[in-house]
């Protein structure tokens, strides 16, 4: 009864005649008579072979077709976009650091060569839009200037009272006319936000050239600073380059010659961990007993493939040219200094573009080896204002040194200035001009479209009368500025800008820095 099969139900012929001895018909199931199928079999074989060839060819065609379709057909993606949030950081006080007065490595009597002291004090201009800025001197510096007018200053713009109010734009600039300790010349620099990564293009440690590195730490934590110094022979190795501790609210002063004497063309890379610092170079030149001027070198834009150095103002070319031949006056020449980090050599396309379009510029191409500083003279320029652009395949930093020499009848003083690669401005930007000097704003439009910029003077947080400046694509422009004021640049999409200052034979300049990115909106993908 539990037989699981039903097969034996198939009605078959019963076999009674001989009931027990009968054979099962199943015994014969396999005895199908052999048929002679030779001829049909041949045909069948041919048919089978044909069918195989057809299926085989078909298979190959399908496979090839599928792979070709997958390779060449534009197939639609099923793609969604990652969720993100744009975070506006809670507004906080903004801080800029002005690097402070020119220093020298000795006191007024010339003694104490290991101790820095201030030559004078820098005048500071600061502005905010909207709002106001307070300036506080650093409490302690290695140069002993702590708390004095000669100290580096922290410019503080308080955060808006409510979240609805816009974060103010802040800017500051300092300028100093050196007239003590046998040092002459005009210095000017922008007050900037402390960072962890600074490139400084400028300075020299050959005879008579003094270059100091100032490290100003405005933050509340100690900064550990590492220096990398590159020269014409490549990276400089020296004890003491790493692990320099800069106490909170303090400024360290280091002599570049202590690490790298007799360096013609240094480039300094400053990185800091812990607190952030503002790093500058202060260079003074003494030719024999004659002062050759002074300069505070500001940070260059981070390595990039397009370096723009606006505001190269060439003047007194005749005097400069004549004095250039004198012994020790080689560094009156206008030079372009470049450094390519990494180990891939590149070629630089250098273009010197007249800002007013009236004077001829110059273009040249030069091979730039990676890892060593390349310095080339820019010659045959007539008096005028120029913008230098340097295009490289590899990211590079670049700076320009230019000199001025007053004719002998005007006192014969010489001065020099270092102009650094200017960062690209993409949003509204505030700049300040130093006091008591003649200032020009230099603009360069590296974009593909003409831009119309609005420039609005801001004094004590109050807007003045705006003016419009058109900068055509790929050209530069100059705008004269008054001193001791701040200006808001707006309405543009992409500009590089710098400010140049004159006072008599003294020249100086600094790049306009974009507003601190560290408090801009940021997109987060959690």
């Amino acid at each position, binding site marked *: *009864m539990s*037989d699981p*099969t*039903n*097969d*034996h*139900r198939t*009605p*078959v012929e*019963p076999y*009674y005649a001989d*009931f027990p001895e*009968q054979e*099962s018909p*199943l015994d014969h199931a396999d005895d199908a008579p052999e048929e002679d199928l030779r001829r049909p079999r041949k045909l069948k074989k041919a048919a*089978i072979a044909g069918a*195989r060839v057809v*299926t085989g060819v078909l*298979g190959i065609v399908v*496979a090839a077709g599928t*792979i070709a379709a*997958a*390779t*060449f057909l534009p*197939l639609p*993606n*099923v*793609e*969604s976009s*990652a*969720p*993100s*949030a744009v*975070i*506006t*950081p*809670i*507004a*906080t006080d903004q801080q800029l650091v002005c690097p402070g007065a020119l220093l020298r490595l000795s006191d007024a009597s010339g003694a104490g060569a290991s101790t820095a002291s201030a030559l004078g004090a820098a005048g500071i201009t600061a502005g905010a839009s909207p709002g106001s800025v307070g300036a506080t001197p650093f409490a302690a510096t290695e140069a002993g200037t702590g708390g004095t007018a000669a100290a580096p200053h922290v410019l503080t713009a308080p955060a808006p009272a409510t979240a609805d109010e816009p974060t103010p734009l802040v800017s500051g600039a300092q300028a100093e006319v050196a007239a003590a300790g046998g040092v002459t010349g005009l210095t000017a620099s922008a007050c900037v936000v*402390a*960072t*962890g990564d600074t490139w400084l293009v400028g300075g020299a440690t050959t005879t008579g050239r003094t270059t100091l590195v100032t490290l100003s730490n405005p*933050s*509340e*934590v100690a900064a550990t600073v590492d220096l990398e110094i590159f020269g014409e022979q490549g990276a400089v190795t020296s004890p003491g380059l790493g692990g320099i501790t800069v106490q909170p609210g303090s400024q360290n002063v280091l002599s570049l010659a202590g690490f790298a004497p007799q360096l013609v063309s240094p480039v300094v890379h400053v990185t800091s*961990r812990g*607190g952030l610092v503002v790093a500058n170079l202060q260079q003074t030149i003494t030719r024999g007993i004659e002062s050759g001027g002074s300069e505070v070198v500001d940070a260059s834009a*981070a*390595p*990039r493939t397009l370096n723009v150095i606006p505001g190269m103002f060439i003047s007194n070319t005749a005097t400069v040219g004549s004095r250039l031949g004198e012994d020790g006056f080689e560094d009156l020449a206008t030079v372009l200094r470049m450094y390519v*980090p990494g180990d891939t050599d590149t070629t630089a396309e250098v273009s010197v573009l007249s800002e007013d379009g009236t004077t001829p510029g110059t273009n040249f191409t030069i091979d730039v080896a990676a890892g060593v500083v390349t310095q080339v003279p820019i010659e045959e320029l007539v008096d005028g204002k120029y913008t230098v652009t340097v295009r490289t395949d590899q*990211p590079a930093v670049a700076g320009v040194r230019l000199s001025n020499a007053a004719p002998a009848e005007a006192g014969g003083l010489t001065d020099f200035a270092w102009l650094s690669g200017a960062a690209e401005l993409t949003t509204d930007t505030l700049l300040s001009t130093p006091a008591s000097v003649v200032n020009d704003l230099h603009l360069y439009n590296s974009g593909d479209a003409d831009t119309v910029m609005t420039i609005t003077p801001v004094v004590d947080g109050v807007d003045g009368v705006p003016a419009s400046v058109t900068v055509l694509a790929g050209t530069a422009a100059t705008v004269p500025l008054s001193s001791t004021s701040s200006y808001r640049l707006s309405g543009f999409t992409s500009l590089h800008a710098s400010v140049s200052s004159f006072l008599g034979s003294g020249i100086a300049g600094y790049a306009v820095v974009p507003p601190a*990115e*560290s*408090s801009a909106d*940021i*997109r*987060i*993908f*959690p």
Partner: protein
Amino acid sequence: MQPRVTAILVARNGSEFLEHTLASLKSQTRPPDSVVFVDSGSSDSTAAILAADRPTHLVLEEVKNSFGVAVAHGVRALPPAESEDDWLWILGQDSAPHPRALATLLHAVEIAPSVAIAGPKLMRWDRPDTIAEYGETLTNLGTSVALVENELDQAQHDVSSDLLGVAADGMLVRRSVWEHLGGFDPALPSIDASLDFSLRARLAGHRVVGVPSARILSAGGPELFGRATISSSSRALLRRSAQLHRRLTYSRRWVLPLHWLSLLPLALLRSLGHLAGKHPGSVPAEFRAALAVMFSRKVGHARNNLARTRTLGWAAIAPLRITTAQAREMRAQRRETVMGATTVPDRARVGFFSGGGAWAVLVAAVIGIVAFGPFVGAASVSGGGLAPLGDNLGAIWSQVGYGWHQAAGGFVGAADPFTAVVALLASATFFAPSLSVVLLYLIAVPAAAYGAWWCAVRFSERSWPPAIAALLWALAPPFLSSLTEGHLGAVIAHLLLPWIVLLVLLSARSWSAAAGSALVFAVIVAASPILAPALVVALLAWMIARPRRIPRLIGVFIPAAALFAPLVVDQIARGLWLGWLAEPGVPAAHAVASGWQLAIGAPTAAVNGWRDIGDVLGFADVAGPVLAAALLVPFAAVAFLSLFLHGSRRAMPAFVLALLGYVTAVGATLLQISFVGSEPVAVWAGAGLSLYWLGLVGAAVMALEALGKAVVGPALIVALASTLAVGPLLAAPLSGSASVQASTTTSTLPAFVAAEAASDPLLGTLELTPQADGSLSATLHRGTGTSLEEYSTLASTATELSPAQEDIATVAGNLASRSGLDIVAELDRLHIGFVLLSDAPAESSESETPAASIYQRAAGALDAASELTPVGDTTRGLLWHYQEVSDAGIETGPGPTETPWGIAILIGQGFIFFVTLMLAIPTSRGRGRSTVLDSKETAPGFDEEDPNV
């Protein structure tokens, strides 16, 4: 006095049998005195045939009654009995008695007046030399047992004996007893009706004997009355209903409630037994029988009837019963007889050790150990799509099911089915869960070879093809790419793909294999959801091509569906219809391969490492990939050769698989729905390519098989070239160019964090990674880092931010900025002790890219935060420590067993997997053999094919 015999022949739709039955009835040496034919609602010519035979009485029933009822109607048509020697001879339409059957039966009852029932020996209709059934009895637990069944008649039972019961067919019963006992119990429509009747006759003081010399051909038991076939589940229902009915009828009154209460629990227990015994069809019958008997009114009637007629105690029949042990022994003997008699020898297949399988696995093992040698002794493997597993097995299992997940700031939702696979894997080395992945890496290559060999040997009768298939499969480029890129799901899928082919083929004759293939399918799909569409299409196509497989295979999708249902519902609720196809594990960015790169088995644009080889050797970008393709040409040629050779029809399913796999791989590269930071990441194409490779290897096996003796040359060339083609992949772990790296710790975060997190497993580490577009991705890890089981595709495919993620974004955005936010409060609230700034992308570290500037900005802002102590540069980037993080705990959500939904899902999934597992555990002793009945299905490989094509 001469006995008077009335033959009662009951028929329903029996025209095919009746001619012979009636003929043999007529040819009786001692013809019955009268003949009653009962036609029980036939729809064919039965009534006409019966009428044409001119019986004494012809009863025509309109409705279809049971056999017993039909007999009773036939008896009722008779005139009243004239004497005690009035006999009824009960016949079915398919009971063709031997000419001397009635004479012999009558002889037996005449010499023993106490005999009320005499039963003949039933012979099989199709094999008259085989006893269909002779005598029935009960075990001491009440199960009915046929004493003799399907035995070759060698006169071994030809001893006239007292029996407890005889079959209804051909039963000669005293008419007075029939009428006194009330005939067959109407509650027993077929099975056990005659046994019950005989038993009641015995209890009423009569004897029941078997008459072996009386033989009747029978074409089946009473359950087949009026139908051609009966399904095994219907038969099980009848048997079980009958047994339960009898149990309630025979039991003493005071145990009756206990029996009644035990019906359902017993049904449940027996169902488990049915599953383990591979009779899933009997499970519904079990419950239907229990429920039917529980609410049956016929039990009372039967009990009254029994009480009315019973004159003897139960002890009177005890000697005729057998013990359960005896019954079990009888069953075992019977099974052995069936097997011994009917097992057909397996096809001549090569053995694993004798046929080169062991060699292939050994070679693969050597290659695997050399390639992944650096992983020996490691505590964990991580990188690419892989992260170490959690250190606590309980915590790993708590990620399974519907509940709280830590990813993406924490959410309550369905777990990836892959989590269950990971948890299972981790359980293998419960003492160090991450070690299981290390071990998997070490054995992966030989394990792939082993599976492929066993699968290939199904399609081959020679040594070479399976051995070559094992090597090709173990050294498949997509497999090794998945290993070196850390795509654990694709690795698991690759290891299991040969097994699902094997199990699906075996499921034709094994419930174990069918359930096994359902489990393997679930694991493969859980590990690589992208394979689901292709595998479903392949299985459906196979079922359509082999409709007889549908009952066994239709359930193959159920466990996987149960596993995926919560995730699919969650994803669809978010509007992401394809979200469940996302690759589980750590989303890992990779360069997507183009169509032709996929065709040579390369899941990424790195072309299995050949692009780098080309660069290193100074070739052009193209030369390396072209060389890789050239090395695979012999393999492709052999695979396509299969279409032109003998057995090409068997190669076609292989090519269909390959095509499905390729389409899956292409689809995977187009499906970019998970994210790493801001970048969408395509689903890993390796799993689809594994399926593609499976088809190609299958085709190659067919070709090598068809090549016959000429196999050696092509086989060696294919093996050598294909091994060279994966050379760069095999060298990757040694050279360190693989994404996965061995580690002696199970933490993905810097050692400093791991040390702190040891005492505070919920301590958060906020990882900030600069993105190429100048944004920042922020990931909150807890403890020693997000472990593999904590990743969730619900998190990685989310297209909207949860409030928790917005919180994290706010904290991250302010941390990376000069900000006035009260960092301390936020870090305390989120219990974040560390901030990790991952290194900016290397190629842009020197230049003013957006990524580099955001890196500078974040580093500067974090440096300036006086609350954070810089720890310094670690292997993972810059690290800051917030030392004063408060001890206040963080809010987490409910675990998988703490919500009603979670519990319901776990119970539902657990039930389905338990049932499938019960079915899958092999219990049959005849594994690997086949019986005559199934012998049609034992042709090699894809069965039922025409060997000439």
